[in-house]
């Protein structure tokens, strides 16, 4: 059950503070509640997931790599199922899984080098793990593995024993758990070392999350030129950082699109902080009170979206209404720039649900006090849109501007082949 203090003013910060004081299970549960209520959403999900997995690695009981992988997977899929519309959770889980595998393999490599028995080890293991293999030579196995890997790049730098690992994973019925990999034979003595290695790795990942926006922003002055008119569609924190950074170098005009009117109760104008910062640099800002942007597109030079997630095919999950804005931009041949850190890059194609888009609470727009006619109305308030890859001109990640064909190699650099196939929503706890 969610702890009391997280319940009153739920926020990511509160939750992180509460991590120390409560059990692992309790903090996972309370995060699940936060996710389900959308009280933690968007980029925060990534940080929250990383924190959770760090706790899992540090505090749960595990004796070998397989157990660790299992623990991370089960915690990860619980979170992912709590917020199926937040693909970044899955990304972080996959990143951590990959990290664990890498650390474990490194440990093993060291062991192997020291023990200098790698060749016999492989020969001994291969027939056991791949009984359907006719020959007992290790050579054919890596070839097959590489063909299986969609990108082919992931395997290029791995050592001999890594090939062995892949082949084992590839041939077993459940490649997800890695239960039959040689890793299971890691020495319990190295568990302690592995734990600290993985924790360090996750902390590095958390640093990456926190620095991503700044890194993306550092590419802003290349994209934004003096006297540009830039349309920022419901700027996220990432986009805000990007614009502010550009403002320190350039004079331009920002049109901010608000797709939703200010709520009657709200007194301040939307994006007041962002606009104040931009104005202080001499950048003009205009809040557009519309989500029909076709009228303004001829005036603007480029359109910037903050991605919620970027899929393998180059499609982007964005705020609702962005699709039509991107379509309009394309009609007028204005570049569409998507800002998305590498951790938002999903090693999967968008599901049908993604394309159909998420529905939000309609009562903000239509009150049931409006009468029986409204009662009989079917109302859809879409809160997310999917941008097909054809509408995006450039993706700016924390590693720099990328074009769509290059996304595959970034994916290959950041995820392990085993984890790409891992479906968070289907696996059992």
């Amino acid at each position, binding site marked *: 059950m969610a702890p009391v203090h997280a319940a009153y003013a739920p926020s990511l910060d509160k939750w992180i503070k509460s991590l120390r004081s409560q059990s692992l299970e309790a903090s996972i549960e309370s995060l699940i509640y936060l996710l389900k209520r959308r009280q933690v959403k968007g980029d925060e999900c990534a940080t929250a997931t990383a924190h959770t997995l760090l706790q899992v690695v540090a505090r749960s009981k595990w004796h070998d790599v397989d157990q660790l992988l299992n623990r991370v997977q089960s915690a990860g899929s619980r979170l992912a199922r709590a917020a199926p519309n937040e693909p970044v959770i899955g990304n972080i889980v996959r990143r951590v899984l990959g990290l664990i595998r890498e650390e474990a393999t490194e440990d093993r490599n060291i062991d192997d080098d020291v023990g200098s028995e790698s060749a016999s080890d492989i020969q001994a293991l291969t027939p056991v793990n791949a009984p359907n293999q006719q020959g007992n030579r290790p050579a054919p196995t890596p070839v097959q593995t590489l063909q299986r890997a969609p990108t082919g790049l992931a395997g290029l730098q791995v050592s001999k024993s890594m090939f062995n690992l892949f082949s084992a994973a590839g041939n077993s019925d459940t490649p997800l758990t890695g239960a039959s990999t040689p890793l299971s034979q890691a020495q319990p003595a190295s568990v302690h070392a592995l734990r600290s290695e993985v924790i360090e790795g996750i902390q590095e990942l958390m640093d990456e999350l926190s620095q991503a926006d700044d890194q993306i922003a550092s590419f802003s002055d290349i994209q934004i030129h003096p006297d540009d008119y830039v349309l920022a569609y419901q700027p996220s924190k990432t986009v805000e950082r990007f614009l502010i950074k550009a403002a320190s170098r350039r004079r331009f005009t920002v049109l901010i699109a608000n797709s939703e009117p200010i709520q009657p109760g709200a007194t301040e104008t939307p994006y007041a902080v962002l606009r104040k910062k931009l104005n202080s640099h001499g950048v003009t800002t205009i809040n557009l009170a519309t*989500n029909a942007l*076709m009228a303004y597109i001829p005036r603007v030079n480029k359109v910037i979206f903050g991605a919620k997630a970027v899929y393998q095919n180059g499609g982007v999950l964005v705020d609702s209404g962005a699709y039509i804005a991107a379509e309009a931009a394309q009609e007028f041949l204005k570049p569409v720039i998507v800002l998305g850190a590498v951790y938002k890059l999903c090693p999967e194609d968008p599901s049908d649900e993604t394309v159909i888009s998420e529905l939000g609470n309609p009562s903000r727009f239509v009150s049931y006090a409006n009468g029986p006619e409204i009662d009989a*109305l079917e109302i859809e308030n879409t809160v997310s849109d999917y941008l097909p890859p054809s509408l995006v001109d450039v993706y700016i990640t924390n590693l720099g501007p990328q074009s769509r064909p290059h996304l595959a190699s970034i994916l290959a650099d950041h995820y392990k082949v085993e984890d790409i196939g891992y479906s968070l929503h289907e696996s059992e706890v």
Partner: protein
Amino acid sequence: MTTETNGAAAPKDAAKNAPAPANPSTAPVAAAAGTNPEKLTPAQLKAKAKAEKAARRAQVKENRAAVVAAEPAKKEGADGKGGKGKGKQDGQPGQSKGHRPSMSGRRPSFPGTEKEKDVRRGIPQCFSHVPMAKRIPTSEAHKDVHPAVLVVGQQMATFAIKDSISRLEATMLALRKVIESYETPEGNSLSRHLVPHVLNPQIEYLTECRPMCFAMGNAIRLLKAKINSVDINDPEDEAKEDLLEWIDTLIKERINLAHFVIARTAADLINKGDNILTYGRHRLVEKTLLKAKETGKEFSVTIVDDPYDRGGLVLAKSLRRADIPVLYSPNLGGLQLKVATATNVLLGGEAIFANGSLNAASGTADVAMAGRKASAKVTILCETINFDRERVSVDSLTYNEIDPERYTADSFRLLFDNTQDKYITGVVTEFESGGGNSPAQAILALLRRQEDPLIA
């Protein structure tokens, strides 16, 4: 009025930053003084009267300002200097040219420049060319403005009368009252006097309240042509009767009949089981859908609304009352999926330009484009009185209006947008009976031939 302000301000640079309010008063006063001794044509008389009024009003304003700040001393200084210099020559031409941004080329019928400037100062630079409706206190209106017109002007400025056809109808009815109460002065003829001396001030006032819509422009042009064609020798009563009847016919044929025909034609386009997608609320779309339901067709409607102007919700209610299944979307989110399931996109228009592009409520262009991309049929409903055969528009910033509620950088909004004809499958008007498959261009050509014998 910028020209005038600049002209008057030039010689008195010494009185640096002479407050703006001083200018309107100085120039007209000088102008009035200058024209006094010469022979006075009616036009000059009128100009003089206007200038005097302007001066009076400016005086009132100055007094008001004096209460507020310690400005008046400065202002008097400016008056003394500026009054001499250029006022006489510069004032009038400057005024008559005016600086109305687009829709009318006329000078404002009241000298509220400084106030207008204050309001318009909030408009972001890149949209500063776009006109905006404004509320003019009735006390500041020109004295020649007829009470009926005054009311219509207020209603238009406050958007109580909003869409182009309602505005057209209200204007014509008000002008009808003006003509009804008109009596040609001694020594003048109706066809020469009515337009410049009576009608124009009304029209200027209306334009001041809110830029004229294209339907109003068309109708007023036709009305003026009609008045000019009145024979000088006709008895006045008969001529007036003629004009009143003409206005009645215009309303009957171009509005009421047009609505009926368009709704009927467009309703024929709806088939059983269709899903019709529409945007916001347009009078013709609403009439069409209700008409189709009346004729016994079963279909469903998807309403995509503008979250800043919830007309669609009103439409949704009215359709639900008629028992039409409605899917309501409060914004443009997920539009690509909604148009994909729609068989027909029905949109209403405010005006259609000579190049076939459509001027309609902001957001229409997005929906039309999405509809076209999804290969749905995009049908526009528009009365022919809204067709502008002289102007072309290629983007939404050419002919548009700023929402007077949202005109600052804090919140900015254009009322209309421009849909290029490539997104439009067909236009339904009251003229063609083909069934909404003809492009706007075809109708424009047809209109060119038909309009004059038909109405003027």
